[in-house]
């Protein structure tokens, strides 16, 4: 029982011949249409398998520039906290003993804060102005 052709009995040998001759592919209904479809697909320009990765990399590169600019601006902007009167507390430092406590003054048109440091006055003033005063330089 080796399965070699010459060892088969005559009936099995005849059946093996029948099987070898039988071409079932004659029953296929897709042989020609499948061939045409696949060859047309093979001729069409193919998308590189790297295309999705390249697209993602290009999008990332496009996003990096505005994102970087935004982050740098955000990082450089000082963070203001609101003070007692709603005025921003500026991150100024007067580490000299000569710096006195700031003086808050109400004025007729608004409010101002004055620091006296080493004999000099530094004034932060808020007041309502008219459009005409926008570019007027005032000296104290």
């Amino acid at each position, binding site marked *: 029982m*080796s*399965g070699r052709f010459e060892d*088969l009995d005559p009936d*099995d040998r005849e059946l093996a011949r029948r099987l070898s001759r*039988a071409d*079932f*592919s004659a*029953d296929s209904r897709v042989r020609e249409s499948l061939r045409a479809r696949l*060859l047309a697909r093979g001729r069409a320009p193919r998308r590189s398998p790297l295309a999705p990765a390249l697209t993602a990399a290009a999008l990332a590169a496009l996003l990096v520039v505005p994102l970087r600019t935004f982050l740098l601006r955000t990082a450089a902007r000082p963070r203001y906290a609101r003070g007692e009167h709603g005025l921003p507390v500026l991150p100024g430092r007067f580490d000299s003993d000569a710096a006195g406590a700031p003086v808050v003054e109400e004025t007729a048109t608004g409010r101002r804060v004055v620091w006296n440091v080493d004999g000099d006055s530094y004034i932060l003033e808020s007041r309502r102005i008219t459009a005409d005063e926008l570019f007027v330089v005032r000296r104290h």
Partner: protein
Amino acid sequence: MSEHPSRRPDFAELYDRHFAPVYNYVLYRVGDAAAADEVVSRVFERALDRFGGYDARRGEPGAWLFGIARNAVNDHFRARRWLAWLPDELVERADAPASDALVADEERRGLRLALRGLDAREREILALKFGGEMTNRQVASHLGLGESHVGVIVHRALKRLRAELEERA
């Protein structure tokens, strides 16, 4: 199935040379023409997808294609497992194309029906040997079996197939 080992065929050549053996192999295993058409379409579609990466020096294109075909047939059986709960008559009717009765070649039809009486292993081996036009040695190498083991299964399968044919006659 012997080919020049290192020349890479173009896809049309591969298709024309191997369509019939691949189809026959698939039909031996799935048992009806409509399912065979479906599975063979999948085989050649996958082959085209992977053709760019095929290296002729690493094996004959026929063996490469039969590897794809074998997986496609297994996928087909996995996908149809849910049909197992249906009564046999319904499955038979679903398997057989409407015009099956009109198939001119009764010889092929008779063989096809008789092949359904074999178990999966016997069908697979006859499929490779007669459908895929392989020698016992090639079948053995493809399935990872001993050559003499393949010979024994071929012998036994032919006997059973003959009995099936006689019963149906």
